[in-house]
């Protein structure tokens, strides 16, 4: 009966369903077909056989991925960096949004916002050029300044420890403009009467922020942080690949799942490693998103993803 109804509905609105068709085909080809292709993680891929014709190899690819020692390393790096990124990004975005919301000078607000949004427009390729300009050993800005004070230049591209701090800094640099606009919109949605009442009762700016802005911003913040955590196993690939590239001295400290997979595919592809790592990431990601969505649903049904 249901099938009949569906068929009837499709016939009645066949133009509308036809209008949906191009995109449906696109996602079938570029998303669902590769989804089925995830089985190559259990195969010994060869070009002639393709996804379906290659021979099964059981867990060999996974054994290779986990025994290489890379699995633990990239998992740790991906999750570690993402958690730090999310914390820094949220903190700075919220702080800037609160500051800007309280500012009276229109032109200052506008100019600062324009500047902060500028990095959002350029690719990480360009950012990598900036970073190189800043930190290269011979004539980077940092080493030039150190030179003025008679210090020894630092080899930043050769020492992993600096990057634990630099990567979060550049992450915030690129995204703070975007994030602050997001939170600013949430602040603008707060009922102004709350503030007026508070001022009449003699609240200081700090009290207004502590007792009104932050509590009312909390729901948005919690949702965005949870959604961010849902992506904790998907690294900021562009950033890592462009800033670090194939620098072997920094590799252990900065290799994430996404860069590992990408590196195994460019040049002479190593499908075994790439597909095992990709499978591991996709499946784990899916589980995490389901968990996060459950958490969001508990917190506020309206914001759940599905």
């Amino acid at each position, binding site marked *: 009966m249901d099938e009949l109804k569906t068929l009837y509905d499709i016939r009645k*609105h066949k133009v*509308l*369903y036809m*209008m*949906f068709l191009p995109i449906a085909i696109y*996602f079938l080809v*570029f998303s*669902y077909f*590769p*989804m089925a*292709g*995830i089985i190559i993680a259990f195969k010994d*891929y060869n*070009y002639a056989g*393709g*996804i379906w014709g290659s021979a099964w190899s059981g867990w060999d690819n996974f054994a290779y991925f986990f025994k290489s020692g890379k699995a633990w390393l990239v998992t740790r790096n991906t999750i570690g960096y993402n958690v730090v990124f999310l914390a820094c990004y949220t903190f*700075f975005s919220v702080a*800037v949004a609160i*500051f*800007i919301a309280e*500012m009276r000078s229109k032109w*200052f607000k506008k100019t*600062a916002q*324009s*500047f*902060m*949004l*500028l*990095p959002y*427009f*350029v690719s990480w*390729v360009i950012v*990598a050029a*900036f970073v*190189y*300009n*800043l930190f290269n050993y011979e*004539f980077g800005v940092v*080493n030039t300044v150190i030179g003025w004070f008679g210090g020894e230049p630092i080899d930043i591209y050769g020492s992993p420890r600096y990057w634990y701090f630099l990567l979060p800094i550049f992450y915030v*640099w690129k995204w*703070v*403009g975007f994030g602050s*606009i*997001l939170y600013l*919109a949430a602040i603008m949605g707060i009922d102004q009467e709350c503030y007026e009442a508070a001022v009449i009762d003699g609240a200081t700016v*700090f009290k207004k922020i502590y007792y009104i802005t932050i509590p009312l911003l909390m729901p948005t913040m919690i949702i*965005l942080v949870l959604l961010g955590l849902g992506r904790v196993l998907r690294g900021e690939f562009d950033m890592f690949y*462009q800033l670090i590239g194939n620098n072997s001295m920094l590799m252990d400290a900065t290799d994430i799942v996404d860069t590992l*997979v*990408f590196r195994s595919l*460019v040049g002479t*592809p190593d*499908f075994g490693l790439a*597909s095992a790592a990709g*499978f591991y990431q*996709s499946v784990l*990601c*899916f589980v995490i*998103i389901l968990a996060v969505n459950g958490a969001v649903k508990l917190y506020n049904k309206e914001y759940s*993803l599905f």
Partner: protein
Amino acid sequence: MKIKHTLDIKIFNAISYTVVGFLGIVTLLPFVVLLASSFSSEASIIREGYSLIPRDFSLQAYSLVFKEPDEILRAYAMTISLTMIGTVVALFFSAMTAYVLYRKEVKHRNKLSFFLYFTTLFNGGLASFYITVNNHLHLKNTFLVLLLVHMFSVVYILMLRSFMQGSLHDSILESAKIDGAGDFMMFVRIVLPLMKPALATIGLFTALGYWNDWWTPMLFIENDKLFPLQYVLYRVLSNVEMAASIIKAPIAVELPKETLKLALTVVSTGPIVLLYPFMQKYFVKGITVGAVKG
């Protein structure tokens, strides 16, 4: 009303203007250094490093870039045509899909939405995608792969649907239906024109995606005639010898390597940053509408 500046406001202002001002400067500074240094002479950079104002003002790097501009111009043409064709096609089909998902007559619209949305929750991994595109679709080394890989985003389609839900009234479509307009005609004649602001916003996000794409050519393009701008820039930045080949300099010539890189970076960033002031309004709107409730 005159606002009284009590002590707490003064302290707060001091903190907020300092922090926001500092961040504003920090985000702007690299762009200034890049621009200034690209107009400096190679010798001054090697001697004293990069600077905020051009030292030994020199156009040498730029004249080298534009002496044999074939490669750069071809990359430009590539990026511009990709961005324009890609954005127009993506907008039309995305809006059309959003319109189907918006129409209440489509009983299964929620299932269709989930069919799209599911692709953002789970994917087959890059290896499987790579094999699909290369081996099963045979799109390697084609213009089409650059166009298609980033063409549609489920998030943008759902954003467009939210825009429609917020700004279109059923009564408009009802009256069009009474006048005898078909579903497709209603979309083209009524919905598309009404969606202009939303299309501008999503169009800008899409265009930016195309302009900044270096990932697709790196994975799928080996033919250097098909390289878009960002990928050419990436190759130049990661390998100085590449810079020489781009400007077709004879190997023996001593190249101003550093300023050449900088000039190329400026040349490939320029258009997007110049357009930025005009785009900003739409971007702010897009971020606000889209991201809080996708």
